[in-house]
């Protein structure tokens, strides 16, 4: 795609030379290998889609049908498709309340990281204080610390503070581990804001807080969007942290489903639709905000 675009853009002398030299035989082999490439990519694309399609169809079949035959049999008998499993799932109080918990954990954890990270990012980018760059490097060095390192210490700390098993505890943990990336991303973005803009606002009499909310935050939009999406998905999709820090009442959907995995096969009618429901929001975010999603995931992958 880029290749053709690039070539159409400017025809260089070498290009014309190449075209002239290509015999028709070479062009046919080119066509053939082009067909081979298309076939290969088509196959790979199918290969990548099949597992997800399998889950979707499995979630739309009755458990009796699932125990009898593979999900692909549905193509022979489309009448097997039913929303029963979904209906049953949404009547299941544990599952619905765990979905609510997922939202209650994810939304605050995302907003807090964006706000606190922006404040710190702005300070690191545009304020002066001793050791600024060293502090910043210190924060960035925490970027690769595995969450596993903190599980046991924080479990004991939360136990003492009465936060263990609470939604607030899970939120705090996610904020703590979201901040290094947030500060890193936002500081770098804010640092690129043209100095003149800030000075002009300053001359108009804006104070530090006003400068931050009226100039820096709006200009930081793209970076904040990427960060927000990354953090949102990170927390939404997390299982490990919630597995350690939640109790039965505060479990998010990932943990609620995880408890069902042990009887895999017997409760596919809970697992398949449950997994699919938990995927719907991330997939919607993915398709709606592809650009920001890619930037965020790319930048945050070290986490």
């Amino acid at each position, binding site marked *: *795609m*880029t290749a053709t675009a690039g070539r159409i853009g400017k025809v260089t002398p*070498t290009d014309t*030379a190449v075209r002239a030299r290509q015999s028709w035989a070479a062009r046919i082999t080119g066509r053939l*290998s082009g067909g081979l490439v298309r076939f290969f*990519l088509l196959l790979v694309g199918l290969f990548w889609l099949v*597992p*997800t399609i*399998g*889950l979707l169809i499995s979630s739309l079949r009755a458990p009796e049908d699932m125990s009898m*035959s*593979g999900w*692909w049999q549905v193509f022979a008998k489309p009448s097997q498709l039913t929303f029963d499993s979904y209906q049953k799932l949404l009547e299941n109080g544990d599952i619905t309340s765990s979905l609510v918990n997922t939202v209650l954990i994810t939304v605050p954890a995302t907003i807090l990281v964006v706000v*606190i990270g922006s404040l*710190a990012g702005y*300070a*690191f*980018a*545009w*304020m*002066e*204080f001793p050791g600024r760059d060293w502090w910043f490097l210190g924060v960035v*060095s925490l970027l*690769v610390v595995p969450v*596993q390192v903190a599980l*046991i*210490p*924080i479990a004991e700390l939360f136990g003492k503070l009465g936060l263990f098993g609470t939604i607030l505890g899970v939120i705090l*943990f996610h904020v*703590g*581990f979201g*901040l290094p990336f947030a500060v890193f*991303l936002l500081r*770098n*973005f804010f*640092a690129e804001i043209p100095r003149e803009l*800030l000075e002009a606002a300053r001359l108009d009499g804006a104070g*530090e807080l006003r*400068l*931050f909310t009226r100039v820096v935050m709006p200009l930081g939009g793209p970076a904040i969007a990427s960060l927000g999406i990354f953090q949102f998905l990170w927390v939404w999709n*997390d299982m490990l942290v919630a*597995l*350690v820090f939640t109790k039965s009442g505060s479990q998010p959907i*990932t943990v609620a*489903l*995880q408890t069902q995995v042990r009887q*895999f096969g017997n409760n*596919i009618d809970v*697992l398949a639709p449950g*997994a699919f429901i*938990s995927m719907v929001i*991330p*997939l919607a*975010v*993915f398709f709606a905000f*592809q650009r920001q999603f*890619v930037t965020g995931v*790319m930048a945050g*992958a*070290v986490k």
Partner: protein
Amino acid sequence: MASAAAAGAPPGPAAPKSRKSVTGTRRTVAALFLLPALVLLGALVVYPIGYSVVRSFYNASGDGFAGLDNYKALFTDDGIRTALKNNIIWVVFAPTVSTALGLIFAVLTERVRWGTAFKLVVFMPMAISMLAAGIIFRLVYDQDPDKGVANAVWVGVHDTFAQSSAFPKAHPGRDSPLKADAGGFITSAPVHVGQPVTLPLVGVAPDQMPDGAKKAVAAGAEPGKVTGTTWQDFTRGKGVGKLGSPDPSEPGYAGMRIEAVKDGKVVASAEAAGDGTFTLPASADGALLRLPASNFKEPYNGVDWLGPALVTPAVIGSYVWMWAGFAMVLIAAGLAGVPRELLEAARVDGANEWQVFRRVTVPLLAPVLAVVVVTLMINVLKVFDLVYIIAPGSSQDDANVLALELYRKGFAEGQPGIASAIAVFLLLLVIPVMLFNIRRLRREVRR
């Protein structure tokens, strides 16, 4: 890391020599802006690091100094050793396979018009949780070829190339002329030209009969040939049907292989027709007839993906499914920066596509590839959910990785000391990357 900077920060004009505060900030204001972040980081990230290091030198209950005992456990405890071994497999294979696939996809998608759609499909798994991916692959790897798509495809391919046997449970009935022989069955008496042979068996379920099976027919005598019938000598209902000869309701064993054996050597062989009849040449005269074991093997049931031997590669496969898209997108971004003129120049010089790829594209992309591999290596060290979900209880010990073992030791087995030692070990493994990050950023920050 380099990617992080490249993707995260917009390419702006070179920043002015120093970004002095435009507001002449008072330090208290700066402190207020920083305080929430620093407090949270201190309490939730820095403090746990220190705590883990200290805790790793104490015993399980935390009241006695244990010296290096917990670290010794890293190399003596069976569970941890399996985990270490598996982590090495993970770190070697998962990042390299993902990156190699990402590279291939990135290069090839440039040549098709629907490259963007393809990238979308391969990148999509990055959006979903490892739990959901785990459930997805638990379904894919189901042992039963009628349920798990991996085995369905595998068995399908296998049966195309190797004939599957049709009569797994067949065995001789009462007063049968056949006796067991090396997994198959053989006649007790030699057969002769002109005397039709009967080879009855029982025990094949009706729905397992081969598609070509027709009503069994008693073979007629043929001069100079050994003829006979092999069929299911069983009719439902007591007293119905005659033992030892084909009744109208009894199906022939279509496709059954028959060998004539003389002194242990196969002298002739044939395959039964739809009605169970078969014909052997005169050379079979005086031989024993054998139904060889290959007729009665259990049908091929596919690969035990989640069994002890294959569970780690299987889980790595699901990881590659999730992360190859990440490698692909990063590499594609790097590829967009490769000057097209260089590739064209190589082609003009007579290089074929493979040579262009191997000698020009890959070397130019080397820095990007290195970043992708290192990023994935760090990521792989922390893999937990996939193993926890995909590996069934029976083979979870065989699929163990450090992150999972840390969780088990810390929260299931009441060994926080050993778990802390694992945590410190994981941290040590990422420290080189941490230092690399700091060095690279120090240059950028000091502009």
